[in-house]
């Protein structure tokens, strides 16, 4: 039966049909939905979980595979950096049950801090990598990945990109295959990677890459489409779909379903059959450089950019010289609409206070990265998961104690569990005096509400033990821990002032649930009364519901306000009041 499936849903379906029995991941756009869809399959068939970070997730999956089950771990491109350590060594160990790592790149950086190309990891870790172009490929390639994994005794990467992960296309659904958990047998030469054993395994890894290269020569996923043209295009993944739309049957295609290792002979033969060969690939010249190293004459990045996403129009222009279709444009500047913290967001209170106090803010990855944009504009740095704490430690050590009194780290509850704990122990151990604010909004927000070790729920919504952040910080050696509601602006400001003044490390847990959680309901909506003196202090909150018209009158948009009331506390004239509800407005 054909179904319209999101690429990520099709990966989940492929893994399910391949008999996957263990999936552990950490959420990250654009990969998150794979594991969420896995959780829609019966728990008796597939165990799945959110792990505290990608390294833990990959290690759990590796263990499950050593234990004989088909296992998978999914992450975004930067998540692969976090899981790289176990993955590189798992390449030597290989598998018992098949092991698949799905990694979703984000060309164009729709929701990421960099634009790295994960294919380099395949070559560096000597792990084969499949790259689907649409949802049907996603399902089929994921199934194939498990088979390849067991056949060649290797973990296998499935590389996605935002447009593949987040596009829906038609997929033929199949049945789940029966792959019972294989018996576990102790084998230290294969599973204990210390020098003596690893030396032996490295030999096998190199032989395996050669064997996979041979397999690639005849693999049906590496597909040639001969349209009788003298122009050849070598491509893979979403770039194939763009090329196909742009160039139709005017060129011959070599669609690589496996981007590592490459079929050297088949590529050389394809190139020899054409007068001119282009490599069309987003981001880095990965296939192109491999072709050039093999002595195959191709053109790639001479024509195409290293930056962002491609489009069919761009490809048609470069290869065929055709112009983009005519279009009409506005004759004036159109203001941007950057993402903002939602109405009612608990982080708004935090950043309002931090900005007011003029602090340097070492930021982290999550919704609260948006605290960097005007008018809150209080975040100074954003590097990677967990860096808010460790980077502030380094900053404080070089800038000194006085600077540190105007410096805080902000980190979400999920990000703190991911990789903030180790940074905090660095500060405690090495006599730092930083102030760390844990933004505890009771959920992993940015990626769309995933549970984490602090929420007390599993991925399947079952109640579970909950990490006690206070006890955890205390165990790390922190003596000054306060819990504060960031919407109680006065108390929160006082806490931040006190803790930053202190010559010792301290933690403030800013506690208020995400405004988008179903359990969060505020009574009534906020309304500006005639007491308003147009001082515009409320505008400093950067609430999308509050705006000023050309006459300088302040308005609160009833369709956007969620009644959180933060603005009421900010107004020095008591001019904002709670009025009717959205329901009243509906029938109003």
């Amino acid at each position, binding site marked *: 039966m*054909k179904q*319209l499936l*999101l690429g990520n849903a099709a990966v989940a379906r492929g893994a399910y049909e391949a008999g996957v029995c263990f999936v552990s991941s950490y959420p990250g*756009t*654009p990969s998150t939905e794979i594991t969420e869809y896995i959780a829609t399959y019966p728990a008796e068939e597939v165990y799945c979980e959110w792990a505290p970070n990608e390294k833990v997730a990959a290690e759990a999956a590796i263990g499950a595979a050593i234990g004989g089950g088909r296992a998978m771990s999914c992450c975004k491109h930067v998540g692969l950096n976090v899981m790289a350590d176990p993955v590189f060594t798992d390449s030597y160990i290989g598998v018992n049950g098949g092991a698949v790592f799905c990694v979703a790149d984000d060309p164009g950086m*729709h*929701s990421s801090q960099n634009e790295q190309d994960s294919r380099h990891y395949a070559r560096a870790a000597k792990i084969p990598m499949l790259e689907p172009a*649409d949802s049907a490929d996603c399902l089929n390639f994921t199934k194939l990945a498990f088979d390849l994994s067991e056949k060649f005794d290797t973990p296998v990467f499935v590389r996605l990109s935002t*447009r593949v992960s*987040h*596009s*829906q*296309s*038609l997929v033929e659904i199949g049945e789940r295959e029966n792959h019972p958990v294989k018996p576990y047998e102790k084998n230290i030469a294969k599973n204990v990677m210390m020098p003596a054993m690893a030396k032996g395994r490295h030999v096998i890894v190199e032989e395996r890459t050669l064997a996979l290269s041979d397999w690639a020569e005849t693999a049906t996923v590496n597909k040639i489409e001969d349209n009788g043209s003298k122009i050849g295009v070598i491509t893979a993944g*979403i770039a194939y*779909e*763009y090329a*196909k*739309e*742009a160039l139709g049957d005017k060129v011959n295609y070599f669609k690589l379903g496996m981007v590592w290792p490459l079929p050297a002979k088949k590529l050389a033969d394809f190139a020899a059959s054409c007068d001119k060969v282009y490599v069309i690939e987003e981001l880095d010249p990965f296939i192109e450089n491999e072709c050039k190293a093999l002595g195959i004459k191709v053109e790639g990045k001479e024509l195409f950019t290293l930056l962002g996403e491609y*489009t*069919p*129009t761009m490809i048609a222009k470069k290869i065929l010289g055709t112009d*983009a*279709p*005519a*279009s*009409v*444009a*506005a004759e*004036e*500047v*159109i*203001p*941007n*609409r*950057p*993402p*903002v*913290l*939602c109405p009612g967001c608990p982080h708004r209170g935090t950043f309002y206070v931090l900005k007011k106090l003029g602090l340097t803010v070492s930021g982290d990855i999550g*919704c609260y*990265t*948006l605290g960097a944009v*005007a*008018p809150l504009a209080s975040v100074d740095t954003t590097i990677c998961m967990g860096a808010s704490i460790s980077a502030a430690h380094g900053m404080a050590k070089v800038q000194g104690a006085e600077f540190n009194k105007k410096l805080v780290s902000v980190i979400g509850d999920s990000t703190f569990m991911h990789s903030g704990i180790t940074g905090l122990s660095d500060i405690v151990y090495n006599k730092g005096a930083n102030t760390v604010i844990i933004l505890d909004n009771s959920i992993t927000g*940015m*990626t*769309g509400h995933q549970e984490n070790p602090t929420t007390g729920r599993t991925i399947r919504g079952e109640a579970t033990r909950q990490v006690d952040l206070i006890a955890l910080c205390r165990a790390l050696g922190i003596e000054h821990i306060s819990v504060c509601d960031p919407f109680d602006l006065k108390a929160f400001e006082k806490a931040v002032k006190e803790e930053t003044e202190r010559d010792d490390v301290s933690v403030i847990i800013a506690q208020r649930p995400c405004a988008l959680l179903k359990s969060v309901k505020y009574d009534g909506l906020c309304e500006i009364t005639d007491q308003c003196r147009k001082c515009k202090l409320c*505008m400093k909150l*950067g609430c*999308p519901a509050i*705006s*000023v018209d050309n006459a300088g009158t302040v308005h609160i*948009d009833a*369709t*956007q306000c969620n009644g959180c009331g933060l603005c009421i506390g900010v107004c020095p004239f008591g001019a904002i009041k709670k009025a009717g509800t959205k329901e009243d*407005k*509906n029938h*109003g």
Partner: protein
Amino acid sequence: MADTKKIMIVGVGGQGTLLASRILGHAVIDMGYDVKVSEVHGMSQRGGSVVTYVKFGEKVHSPIIDRGEADIILAFELLEAYRALPYLKEGGRLIVNDQRINPMPVITGAAEYPENILDKLSEKVATTSVDALKLATEAGSIKSVNVVLIGLMAKSTDIPYDVWKKAVTETVPPKFLEVNLRAFDLGYNH
């Protein structure tokens, strides 16, 4: 593929554009077309500009729509309609919700919201506008703006009413079905 239909849905994160594209996707599969729907998830959803592409026809390759290509642009907000204008093909139709949502640069005073967008759009391209918020309120929930707009757009396609109705029924949560069917009809009959 000359016969591939290209529909672009634009709006502001949180307006429900995803559900609208899913209803549309459902309807076109029912018609037996090949289809691709490209969505936006993650950071840009937080009140930022959101764009969804829906393409259907005999065989669809690229999931995205380029400038000058869209047969229909369904805009949930005026400024987003204006921003998406270059994507409309010659002879295409722009369907726009007559609602203004100020983006943060306008709220902070760093930029100005263009005046009379609707008039400017109508001068340049074939434009249909609607106060979807009013119709959604009439239907029983301001959250059904997305379904009102899908209803209005449905009339500009060759897909029969019953197919649309089935798509709405199979896509929206059962709890809100009645409101959404009313919303669809109000848009369709506008």
